[in-house]
């Protein structure tokens, strides 16, 4: 449109220039200036008319033609309905897959926070030579907030699973504590009621702001929620507002349910060494760069840390400086984890679309040959070849647009399925991968690009065609031109190449999933149910320990329960605890070497989890507060710290600032997987729950069912039993160990599933493509074949000829696809497991499978060629 206006203005200038030049001439010829001007204008004629004609001519040409092309395109597609529907189906798959995957990628990798001007926000985090340590402590934040000159506002926040009570009923929510100005800084306006303000930090009264999701789930969207109360810890909070639906907090993948003032965490507000803050977010003043904010924050931090109690070397390693990172996309918890898998998914989807384009292009080419007469007549009637080519292109883009619409529906369904996959498990990831402007634009762009790419082939052919030749070709007698056959072969080769890459990918990812599924986890997950149980607030530590003891004993009495135990956490739960220990005879080379993971467990834990004992004994109820402190270690710890020595009886010292804690090693258990299935075994020390180092208000109850598979049936009896032990106990995160395993393997499942489906689809499309091309050629060559057979060629020679034709295309495709498959496998190397990324057997297997499929699809046309009866064929002409 701009271009049009530019041309209009350009032309107006040209007209004026013309008139001036004419006036100059007339002046030279003797007129006066005034006369010359008038005469020049008169000689020119009606300027307005000329300009209007220009405007009209430019405006209507391309648009009119486009309208014509579109109408004609619809008619052509309607006439060839069957073909159009088949093509549209594959297009729907191709565009749908790409749209779905891009939605995911957009939600995880690209989206900005739904706050005001996210690009002006930064996170402040401390770091040192060894790594980062998260945001600095609250006292630092307080000082920076007072003294800052580069930031408009600063806010601190932290979120975690929180136990609250509404109407006396306890439940678990994702809670967040934040500075009073948190919402104001982010520019989040309430959809109901009001948000927190700095005055609310006085906790007079304590207020809470809830999310829209929580409001709908828990309060049914009742507007009377404002003024309702909820209890957290010892305080009662008044709900004052609801945040809008799109706001979920600052951590993509996690959705905060309620937000309360940060001043509720009194003890931690003055603790300079505590690392409990999840983030410090700052909004830069206009015109201030992130580097300036970082400089100011860093200077203050160094002087703040000068008074720190940490040893100097620890400070240098983790608390040396402060960095300001862009916060526009929120805290990075899921981004880095899913970045590579998402890229692989996008590549798979792109390859599928390429396949669809090649397939459709091939179909169009073969259809084009049967439309030769139509084109020839149009050319004879005066259409330019360019016009026909353009119309074919328009028709193809139209076909792709028609196919893309059901593709969008497919995409939405696929996205919903994947969103619910992400939501499984203990650490549910909340994704909002719904359609937005960017995804829509992407979808339209790829549909258009794919349509143009596919349409170029028939359009180019139509453009190059000689009308006379076209008329001849329409006749069934004519032979096929070499060029058109070559193009079709090339497309088949492309399809074969793409199919190979997808098949190889499917091979690798399937092997990965299967290998990980068979990994020795160190525990036995069949029939094991786990859940978090939390004591009501106000329980003193001794009371809490007693509570767990009673709970476990009561649960053990339930019929159907083989054994039960509690622990701080379980394998693959994503939770972790660590400590530094010292043993006799082992000098650690670094703090790293002296660190072990710790878990507090009760008697019955190892039996319930099916973790085997290697030496010594497991815990019993005899290991209580008054007896000698014992601990169990796992094989890795034994090997690392004691080598060939017998660890039993050795003393383990936990080093803590202020006094050691000594435990005697009473047994060695097998290693188990801890955070994920791929890692090397970690060093673990198990401490009895009755001789704890810390008392947890929240533990994991582990129940082994007598009948594997029936563990979920135990849930109801367990709940009622626990309610009898302590009605205020909060039960959450109920999951069987087998479901946990599935959740841990979610990415692998996604990759394997998608690559298998696309591999299968690719193979099918390639086979159909090859079959189509071959049977078409055989059909065209019937006369030639008949003649050859009449002259004495045997049937096997004819069959060999057909196979040779297909063999060329297939071999070319395999040769082209192999290097791409190798490179792709190397790129995805760290996603693959259980097989080396350069293991050529996978590539060879893929090639073999494709070869067999190609052979099978060539069979029918070959048989048809062989069954040509020379007499009949010759008689037909």
């Amino acid at each position, binding site marked *: 449109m701009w271009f049009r206006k530019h041309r209009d203005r350009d032309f107006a200038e*040209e007209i004026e*220039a*013309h008139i001036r*030049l004419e006036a*100059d*001439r007339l002046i030279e010829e003797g007129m006066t200036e005034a006369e010359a001007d008038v005469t020049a204008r008169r*000689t*020119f*004629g009606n300027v307005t008319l000329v300009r209007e004609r220009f405007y009209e*001519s430019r405006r209507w040409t391309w648009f009119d033609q486009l309208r014509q092309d579109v109408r004609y395109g619809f008619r052509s597609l309607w006439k060839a309905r069957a073909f159009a529907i088949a093509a549209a189906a594959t297009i729907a798959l191709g565009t749908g897959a790409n749209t779905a995957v891009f939605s995911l990628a957009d939600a995880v990798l690209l989206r900005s926070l739904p706050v005001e001007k996210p690009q002006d926000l930064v996170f402040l985090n401390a770091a040192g030579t060894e790594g980062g340590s998260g945001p600095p402590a609250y006292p630092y934040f307080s000082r920076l907030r007072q003294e800052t000159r580069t930031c408009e506002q600063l806010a601190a926040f932290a979120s975690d699973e929180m136990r609250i009570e509404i109407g006396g009923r306890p439940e678990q929510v994702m809670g967040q504590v934040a500075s009073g100005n948190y919402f104001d800084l982010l520019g989040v306006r309430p959809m109901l009621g009001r948000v927190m303000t700095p005055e609310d930090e006085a906790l007079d009264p304590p207020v809470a702001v809830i999310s829209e999701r929580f409001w709908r789930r828990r309060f049914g969207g009742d507007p009377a929620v404002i003024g309702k109360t909820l209890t957290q810890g010892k305080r009662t909070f008044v709900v004052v507002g609801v945040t809008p639906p799109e706001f979920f907090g600052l951590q993509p993948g996690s959705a905060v349910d309620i937000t309360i003032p940060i001043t509720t965490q009194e003890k931690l507000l003055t603790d300079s060494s505590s690392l409990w803050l999840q983030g410090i977010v700052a909004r830069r003043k206009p015109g201030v760069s992130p580097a300036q904010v970082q400089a100011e924050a860093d200077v203050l931090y160094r002087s703040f840390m000068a008074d720190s109690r940490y040893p100097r070397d620890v400070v240098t390693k983790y608390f040396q400086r402060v960095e300001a990172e862009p916060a526009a996309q929120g805290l990075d918890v899921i981004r880095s984890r899913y970045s590579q898998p998402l890229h692989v998914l996008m590549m798979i989807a792109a390859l599928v679309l390429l396949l669809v384009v090649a397939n459709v292009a091939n179909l169009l080419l073969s259809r084009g040959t049967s439309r030769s007469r139509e084109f020839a007549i149009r050319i004879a009637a005066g259409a330019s070849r360019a016009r026909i080519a353009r119309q074919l292109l328009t028709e193809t883009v139209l076909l792709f647009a028609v196919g893309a619409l059901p593709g969008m529906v497919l995409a939405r369904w696929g996205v919903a399925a994947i969103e619910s996959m992400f939501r499984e498990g203990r650490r549910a990831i909340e994704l909002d991968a719904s359609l937005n402007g960017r995804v829509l634009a992407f979808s339209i762009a790829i549909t258009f690009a794919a349509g143009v790419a596919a349409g170029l082939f028939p359009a180019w052919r139509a453009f190059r065609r000689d009308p006379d030749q076209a008329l001849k070709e329409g006749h069934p007698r004519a032979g096929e031109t070499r060029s058109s056959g070559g193009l079709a072969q090339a497309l088949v080769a492309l399809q074969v190449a793409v199919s190979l890459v997808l098949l190889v990918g499917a091979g690798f990812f399937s092997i990965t999933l299967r290998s990980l599924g068979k990994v020795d986890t160190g525990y036995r997950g069949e029939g094991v149910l786990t859940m978090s149980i939390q004591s009501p607030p106000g329980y003193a530590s001794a009371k809490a320990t007693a509570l767990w003891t009673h709970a476990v004993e009561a649960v053990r009495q339930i019929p159907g329960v083989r054994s039960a135990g509690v622990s701080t956490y379980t394998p693959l739960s994503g939770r972790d605890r660590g400590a530094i220990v010292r043993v006799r005879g082992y000098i650690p080379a670094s703090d790293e070497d002296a660190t072990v993971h710790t878990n507090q467990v009760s008697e019955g834990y190892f039996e319930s989890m099916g973790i085997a004992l290697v030496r010594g004994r497991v815990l019993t109820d005899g290991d209580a507060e008054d007896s000698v402190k014992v601990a169990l270690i796992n094989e890795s710890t034994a090997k690392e710290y004691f080598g060939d020595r017998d660890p039993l009886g050795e003393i383990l010292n936990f080093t803590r600032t202020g006094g050691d804690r000594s435990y005697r090693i009473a047994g060695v258990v097998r290693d188990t997987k801890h955070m994920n299935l791929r890692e090397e075994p970690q060093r673990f020390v198990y401490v009895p729950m009755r001789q704890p180092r810390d008392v947890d208000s929240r533990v994991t109850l582990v129940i082994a069912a007598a009948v594997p598979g029936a563990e979920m049936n135990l849930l109801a009896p367990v709940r009622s039993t626990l309610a009898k032990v302590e009605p205020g106990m909060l039960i959450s995160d109920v999951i069987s160990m087998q479901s946990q395993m599935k959740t841990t393997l979610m990415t692998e499942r996604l990759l394997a599933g998608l690559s298998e489906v696309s591999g299968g689809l690719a193979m099918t499309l390639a086979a159909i493509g090859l079959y189509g091309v071959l049977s078409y050629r055989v059909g065209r060559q019937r006369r030639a074949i008949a003649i050859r057979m009449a002259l004495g060629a045997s049937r096997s020679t004819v069959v060999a000829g057909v196979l040779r034709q297909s063999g060329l295309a297939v071999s070319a495709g395999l040769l082209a696809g192999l290097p791409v498959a190798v490179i792709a496998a190397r790129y995805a190397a760290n996603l693959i497991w259980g097989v080396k990324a350069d293991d050529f057997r996978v590539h060879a297997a893929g090639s073999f499978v494709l070869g067999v499929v190609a052979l099978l699809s060539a069979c029918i046309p070959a048989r048809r060629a062989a069954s040509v009866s020379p007499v009949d064929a010759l008689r037909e002409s």
Partner: protein
Amino acid sequence: MSTQEGESKPVALLQGTLDLLILRTLLFGPEHGQGIARAVQAMSGNEILVDHGSLYPALQRLEARGFVSAKWGTSGNNRKARFYTLTTAGKKQMTTERQQWERVTAAVARVLTAENPTG
């Protein structure tokens, strides 16, 4: 398209002939719209005088078909003007159209001088 009312009767021009005249003019080198108008006037011995404005649809048609190309430049008097140049395709087209023109005029002439048109 109109011609100027002068002493002699106006010569009715067939559409497309103007195109030929423009191409012919540009054979001598690049020229701007006003120059082309003047040249056509001069070459035709003031017989064919074109409403200068009606030159432009023909020029734009020629440009759209790729027979001429246009660029802004400066005229002899240091005035800004848009200059049209004949392209290779344009030269070829000119030959084609000229041959066509000559065939048509010869045919018309034959018909006019024939003794018995229906013989």
